């Protein structure tokens, strides 16, 4: 390291720390042994001297002068270091910060009029956050699941004491006074109020109501376990009171998987004395529940939407707009199967929305009978391995076994797309049934990736002498950021058959598989 280069920049001031940082960078250059940038004060000159770099120019420099002192292996290295030093001295730093808060309390300080806490942290911690929010006087929407039953009961009790709502846990969807929370669609404001223990159930009803030209006053998710015996419909019952008192609401729709029978009784008794018309949609439940009351029964989400709009407008309407006539469905099913290879038989349903998947299972039962699932209608139909289909299979990809360490499939479609390709490659698969959910909080363009994968899947099947049917329904509105029409179009262009509702798509897929089995 024999080459020494010292450069003095007269009256050029730079902060000592900045100079140290540049020195550090220069020392990293190849062939550079020492690099010191300093203002030529007495103390600093002493340091340069001890480093053998107090050459004449540096010695005669004054405290207002900047000294660049380099020791290197060769001239070129020294020169390069000096040039780099000068360039770094000229650099400027500028950046932006966006603001988030590390604690609930400081967030609340910034927005003291906050009235709702939306909580989507891991279940283990969610109850503590919810408790804190309630203690501070905020209503709580708990998107998180895996919250203990005891915690749910305690939180809802605390909420009742304080007159605050606790939506959830496992509440994915709410629309309150026009604000779409969690996974929710942009829907017209109107007179239909929805209460649901089921996220995508609420979403499907909302979008269908909107499609028929009506609108939503509020759509409130109570959480998947609210209607269990232990929780006793705590939030549901309170919300029935609220919707009954709410001026904007003229019809109340209650949607859920069938509750515990004692809880169902309590809820139905309460609904029966409601001053406003009520539609009860206990998916897979017994219509006898509303016998002898003024309440209306709906077995599917689609029927619930139809009934609500009918009641509200007084207009008769058998099916929602764009509905396909059943005979046409059968004809279409036969057309699909005519192109298939003899071995193709089975239906594979890949769902991102739990309730949509559940409704599909109910509809498919009519045409296909037993369907294996990770959310089976009967215990003995539970898939031994969620990753391997058996016969007719429908899976809810939002369930825990798929979502460990991942985002929900309505946000991250990766797992479903892989599964689609896997299923498509199997010679015994005839039809794939899918839900596509739009709205705020969900993937910005679900149809795009899905369409690409559908194309690939159908091409694979075609190359192996098979024909793969893909049937889907898009749960969304034109106002959703993704745009309903464009999403449907993208899917059709890839060869998917797009029906207007989940129930109809399930019906068609069931007919296809039924015909394929028979063939």
């Amino acid at each position, binding site marked *: 390291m024999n080459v020494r280069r010292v450069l003095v920049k007269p009256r050029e001031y730079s902060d000592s720390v900045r100079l140290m940082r540049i020195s550090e960078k220069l020392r990293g250059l190849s062939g550079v042994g020492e690099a010191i940038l300093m203002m030529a004060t007495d103390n600093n000159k002493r340091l340069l001297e001890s480093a053998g770099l107090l050459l004449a120019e540096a010695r005669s420099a004054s405290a207002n002068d900047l000294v660049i002192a380099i020791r290197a292996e060769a001239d070129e290295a020294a020169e390069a270091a000096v040039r780099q030093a000068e360039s770094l001295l000229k650099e400027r730093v500028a950046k932006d910060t966006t603001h988030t808060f*590390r604690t609930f309390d400081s967030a609340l300080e910034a927005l003291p009029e906050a009235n709702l806490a939306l909580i989507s942290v891991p279940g283990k911690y969610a109850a503590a956050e919810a408790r804190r929010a309630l203690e501070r006087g905020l209503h709580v929407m708990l998107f998180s699941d895996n919250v203990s039953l005891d915690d749910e009961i305690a939180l809802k009790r605390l909420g009742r004491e304080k007159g605050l709502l606790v939506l959830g846990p496992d509440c994915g969807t709410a629309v309150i006074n026009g604000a779409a929370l969690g996974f929710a669609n942009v829907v017209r404001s109107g007179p239909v109020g929805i209460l649901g223990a089921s996220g995508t159930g609420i979403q499907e009803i909302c979008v269908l109501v909107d499609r028929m030209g009506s609108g939503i006053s509020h759509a409130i998710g109570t959480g998947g376990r609210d209607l269990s015996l232990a929780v006793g419909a705590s939030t549901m019952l309170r919300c029935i009171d609220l919707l009954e008192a709410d001026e904007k609401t003229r019809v109340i729709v209650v949607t859920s998987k069938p509750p515990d029978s004692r809880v169902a009784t309590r809820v139905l008794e309460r609904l029966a004395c409601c001053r406003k018309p009520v539609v009860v949609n206990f998916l897979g439940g017994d219509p006898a529940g509303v016998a002898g009351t003024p309440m209306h029964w709906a077995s599917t989400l689609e029927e619930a939407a139809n009934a609500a709009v009918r009641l509200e407008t007084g207009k008769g309407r058998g099916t929602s707009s764009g509905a396909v006539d059943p005979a046409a469905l059968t004809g279409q099913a036969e057309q699909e199967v005519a192109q298939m290879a003899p071995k193709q038989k089975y239906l594979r349903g890949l769902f991102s929305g739990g309730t949509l998947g559940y409704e599909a299972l109910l509809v498919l039962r009519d045409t296909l009978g037993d369907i294996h699932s990770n959310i089976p209608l009967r215990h003995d139909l539970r898939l031994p391995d969620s990753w391997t289909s058996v016969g007719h299979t429908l899976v809810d990809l939002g369930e825990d076994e798929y979502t460990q360490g991942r985002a929900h499939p309505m946000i991250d479609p990766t797992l479903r797309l892989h599964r689609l390709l896997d299923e498509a490659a199997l010679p015994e698969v005839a039809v794939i049934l899918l839900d596509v959910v739009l709205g705020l909080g969900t993937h910005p363009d679900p149809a795009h990736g899905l369409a690409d994968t559908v194309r690939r899947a159908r091409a694979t099947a075609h190359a192996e002498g098979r024909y793969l049917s893909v049937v889907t329904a898009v749960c969304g509105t034109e106002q959703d950021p993704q745009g309903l029409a464009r999403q449907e179009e993208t899917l059709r262009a890839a060869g998917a058959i797009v029906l207007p509702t989940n129930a109809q798509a399930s019906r068609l897929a069931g007919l296809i598989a039924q015909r394929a089995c028979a063939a």
Partner: protein
Amino acid sequence: MSDLKASIAAANQETVDRILAGQPVWVDVRPAIEVVPGMTRNMVLHSSPRIEWGRMCGPHRNGIIGAVLFEGLAQTRDEAIHLIENGDILIDTCHNHDSVGAGAGITSASMPVVVVENKTYGNRAYCDVFESGALQSLKWGWYDEKVGAHLHWLAEVFAPVLRAGIECMGGLDVKSIVAKAVQMGDECHNRSIAASSLFFKDLMPYLLRSQVKEADLLQAVDFLAKADHFFLHVTMAAAKAVLEPAKDIPYSTVVTAMARNGVDFGIQVSGLGNEWFTAPAGKVDGLYFRSEWGPGDAALDLGDSCITETVGLGGLIQATAPTVQQYVQGTLADAIRNTVEFREICVSTNRELQLPNLDFEGTPVGIDIRKVVQTGILPILDTGITSKEAGLIGAGQARAPKECFEKALRAFVARYAQA
């Protein structure tokens, strides 16, 4: 909210109110033996927490030996070590004597200290007078003839001149200097150049009118004019002085002291009295003054100087002195983000000390151990890097270890929460 939570909230508010009500005034400069409570001729103080001779880091050990030599208690290093090991030298921490010390914090009987009085509550605190900007000084554990001679000069020539100037001034309002300095790019720990310059400007007219020998005056002025970090030691004493009345408030979870001795890091909490909660001191992340120095040469974090962070200066307000971020290849955005984060773990802000880069929001004050443990946001200390043996070799930043806060939190719940 439970009674316990309400009590804590009230106690924390009172703690911060007391800190903010403090009025620290620099009133005097005297030899330690004359003013530091409990100081004796054969005593050497060092930065906290307490630590046995055998466990001390190099700068502390070498610094204490140096002090013994300086005081003339021994003539050689070996003699000095002999006295120390025999127990003939009383070794204690600065904090135990109402004092704080920067670096190794070495304070002995003849060394001059600044005296700061908290006018609101009447209590006083002390800190060694700034020694020197040299890398080899007793502050960093280095003692040789040159250092010794300079220490004598400080005690015999400089300190009396400084005292005369302060007396002539009628005392110096420390907060007003700090308030201006934080608007001029100082965070008042690793950067005190604005504060030191403002002090110099204020002092000069009085110094020139005080009755001191011209030769001494010239030497003193020459020294002060180059002492960029001079004011740190005054700020430290002032911080100690305003924190003292905030100690021992029942139910308070606010930190009243932080310190490290190159081996252990310790904190004190208002509601937990004089107890120190300690954990191993951490490494300092930063830059080195010479290429042959690196992390392998460095002692761990040391010094009482993080009493500045304890009152919401230094590493807690990097946003106002973004240059310190450059030690760790950081940016202005990093500096601002760090300061905004510290607001999250503090009870309140100090409206008298406003930060232009945060739209004149006050400095964060009152570190709450609950919030530290909850968020994992650990106070940053802007600090020097000392060599394992002696001498300053670089500068940078370190984080207070989370174990200290966790230990304190456990002790707190044991004392205050019904089982």
